[in-house]
C-alpha cells in the first residue's frame, strides 16, 4: 500500500529564490497557506486552512521544524486531526532542492501516512453504533405500527 506522496517540480529560479519561498513566513503564505513558520530547528508552527470535514481535519496543521540545510533541504512534521488536540494525521514533509544550470528542481516528499490514534477504530465503532441506532429505530417503528393496527 502506498504511504507517501512525491512531487518533483522544475522552476526557472535559482535555489536561493526558491529557498526564500520555502522558509520566509510571508512568502510561504503567498503560495501555500497562512502560517507562523520560522527557519529554526525545533520551532513549532502552524498552517491554517479551511476545515476538511470529509477527512475529519479541522484545517490546522501542527508542524515542527526538524531539519534545515540552507538552500538544500528542509523538513518538518505535519500533524492534523478533527480538533480538541486529537491527532489522526501524523506525517512528515521533506523538501530538497537541486541546482540546475538554469533553475532548480524542487522535490517534495510527504510521508508517514498511517492511521494513528486508532482513528480507524473509532470510525468503525461510530459506524456500527449508527447501524445499531438505525436498527433500533426500525424496530420501534415496527412495534408502533403493530400496536396501532
Amino acid at each position, binding site marked *: 500500500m502506498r504511504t507517501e506522496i512525491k512531487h518533483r517540480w522544475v522552476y526557472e529560479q535559482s535555489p536561493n529564490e526558491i529557498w526564500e519561498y520555502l522558509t520566509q513566513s510571508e512568502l510561504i503564505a503567498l503560495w501555500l497557506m497562512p502560517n507562523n513558520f520560522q527557519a529554526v530547528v525545533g520551532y513549532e508552527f502552524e498552517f491554517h486552512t479551511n476545515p476538511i470535514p470529509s477527512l475529519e481535519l479541522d484545517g490546522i496543521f501542527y508542524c515542527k521544524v526538524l531539519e534545515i540545510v540552507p538552500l538544500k533541504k528542509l523538513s518538518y512534521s505535519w500533524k492534523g486531526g478533527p480538533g480538541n488536540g486529537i491527532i489522526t*494525521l501524523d506525517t512528515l514533509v521533506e523538501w530538497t532542492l537541486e541546482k540546475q544550470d538554469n533553475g532548480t528542481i524542487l522535490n517534495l516528499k510527504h510521508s508517514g501516512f498511517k492511521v494513528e490514534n486508532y482513528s480507524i477504530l473509532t470510525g468503525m465503532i461510530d459506524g456500527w453504533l449508527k447501524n445499531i441506532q438505525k436498527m433500533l429505530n426500525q424496530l420501534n417503528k415496527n412495534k408502533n405500527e403493530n400496536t396501532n393496527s
Partner: protein
Amino acid sequence: MRTPTLDAFQVIADPSRRKILHLLTQDSYNINTLAENFEMSRPAVSKHIKVLQTAGFISIQERGRERYCVLSHEGFNEINNWLNHFDKFWNNKLKNLETVLRTKNTN
C-alpha cells in the same frame, strides 16, 4: 432471531478483541505474534480472531505458510482519502509557487 448488528456491537465490546484491533491498526500480524500480546492461550486468541473476521472487522491473508490478520477496508480507505487529498493539494500548491515566482520576476 439472529441480530447480526448487535453481534457486531458485542464483538467490539470485548476488551481482548478491541486490543487485537488496536494492535492491527499499527501493523498486520500473524496469529502467533498477536497471541504473544495476551495471557490467554493461542486457541483462545484464534477464537477472538475468528469472531472479528466473521463480523468483518479483519480479514486473513495467506502469505506463504503464514496467515496474517489485517484490518478490513474501512480504515485503509481513510488513508487513501488522505493520500489523494494531499497529492492534489501539493500539486496545486507547487503550481501556485510557479505562478507566484513568475509574477514576482515580471514586477
